[in-house]
């Protein structure tokens, strides 16, 4: 059983919503203020600083068929996959420094850690870790899929309108290259996970829908109010 088509369809809808929301368009065409660019960069940095830890969780519940793929992904995030490799959190720190946001880094690190703490402290929605694992896998792969299609567009905009150097933009350019492969592998890992843990198609699809109820891209990069506007949640009551 493959749920790839089902998952990919929702991913694509969410990418369309991201790339057509007002805030993203302003970033891409250069009409955003410096404050808006910096807020976006802060959202990106805050969202992805703890990625290795989330991948660590995925690795811990990975089915045998997906274990090596997820391990490779996790080691790459940590910068251990090749000699002299840089961890992705370090690339994000380089991005912050390149954007002149070094002073904000401690606060962004704190917020990223707070988000992780909040995720770990909330009551578990599901009965077992296999559901939580599938949900985490679907969300992490969503970002990899999105970045593989959007990161180079963002990098071009940040270079053109925010004046960032190629070195500062390494996190974006790196993701636009490697995440095409990661996203492909991610779909295979999702299918492996569904099969290994014996999900019914119905339950697997329901978890995917619940995980992707909100557009996590807009929420994490631009905030809840931007998402509320983009999703039509802040219009006057019917």
């Amino acid at each position, binding site marked *: 059983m493959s749920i790839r088509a089902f998952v990919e369809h929702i991913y694509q809808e969410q990418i369309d919503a991201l790339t057509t929301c007002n805030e993203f368009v302003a970033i891409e065409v250069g009409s955003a203020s410096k404050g808006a660019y910096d807020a976006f960069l802060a959202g990106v940095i805050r969202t992805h600083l703890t990625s290795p830890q989330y991948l660590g969780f995925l690795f811990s519940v990975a089915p045998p068929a997906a274990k090596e793929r997820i391990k490779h992904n996790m080691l790459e995030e940590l910068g251990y996959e090749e000699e002299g490799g840089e961890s992705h959190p370090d690339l994000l720190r380089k991005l912050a420094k390149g954007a002149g946001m070094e002073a904000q880094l401690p606060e962004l690190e704190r917020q990223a850690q707070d988000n992780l703490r909040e995720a770990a402290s909330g*009551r578990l929605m599901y009965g077992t870790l296999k559901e939580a694992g599938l949900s985490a896998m679907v969300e992490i792969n969503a970002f990899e899929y999105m970045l593989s299609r959007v990161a180079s567009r963002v990098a071009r905009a940040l270079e053109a309108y925010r004046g960032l150097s190629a070195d500062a933009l390494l996190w974006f350019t790196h993701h636009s290259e490697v995440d095409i492969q990661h996203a492909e592998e991610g779909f295979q890992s999702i299918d492996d996970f569904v099969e290994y843990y014996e999900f019914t198609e119905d339950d697997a699809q*329901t978890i995917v829908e619940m995980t992707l109820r909100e557009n996590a891209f807009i929420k994490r990069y631009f905030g*809840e109010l931007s998402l509320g506007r983009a*999703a039509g*949640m802040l219009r006057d009551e019917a």
Partner: protein
Amino acid sequence: MRLESATAYALRIPFVEGFSHSTKSRTFSDAVVVKVRSTAGVDGFGEALPRPYVTGETVDTMLAHLKERLWPRVRGIDPGCAAENPSPEALLAFSEHVPAGEVERETTHNASRAALELALIDCWLRSAKLSTGAFLPPERGTVIYSGVITTGSVERTAKLARQMRLLGLTRLKIKVGAADDLERLRAVREVVGPEVSLRVDANGAWDPQQAVEKLRSMEPLGIAAAEQPIPRGDVRDLVKVSAESPIPIMVDESLISTADAESLISARACQYFNVRISKCGGLGPTIAIAKLALESGVGLQVGSQVGETAILSAAGRHVAAWLPDVAFVEGSFGKLLLSQDVSAEDISFGYGGEAPALKGVGFGVRVLEERLRRYATKVVEL
């Protein structure tokens, strides 16, 4: 301590998904949060949500009533120390510092009263470093919440039922009042199986004759209770529906005061009360109505407001944990419904609808004022 200042925040927090019933669709929380501050610098937070079809209130009438009528009658009072004689009766007595919800034409100002009363209670308890649980000792360590399935197509209803099943919820309420109610209920029953308790809520969508017919047709599906089948009105209509319905009747919109409770009990108009702090005018009136129900053998549901934040959910949690007998509990959707809540703690229930009795000071949640400011469409100094 003396009450020195108060601020009202009219919020607009986007939902994760829209929520609909027979008369209303909502996509954001319209909660009004009141913050009071004592001369000792202790803050307390209360919350209520106006529902024009229940009490006649709107966000604007709440803000005006709080500023012009309620706060001037509370500012400067010294309610004494909460540490003396903690008991439900002491909480009821403290609640009386806030004037009863006034009735003006079609409006009963219960939500306004609730928001201010809760803020005062929170401040009073925080001043003494006490939890609400000291006054309402919990009968149970875990509260079991129900899921709610909003109106929508049969397919959407089945989809939501599958989500509820994965969340392990054992009690579900389904919003009804449309032509395809039966198909929707059959779809839910098919998804969740025979063990899950189902009840319906029509939000007054039917006339008495329709209600009886509809409820008779639903009976084979094993429906535990039917909430507000007909609009608030003549209690004799409810008596008729209740006598002829094979499904026990629960009142919601018909119950916003102790006078309503007494009238409904005396007429034997229903089998359940849905008590909700916001519509009932606060914790004090809610406790008073719940006591009347318990004394007369009427079952209780501790209900909630769609879009409530952690403040009102926490107050409801204390009532639900304290009551010796509670049939159903709703609320504490937290981040399951709100894109972001206003508290440091995640109030949402977890798998199986389970959530612990709260133990922290006041209502047991720490409100993040930065979030109140972020989501406020209006901020009014009272």
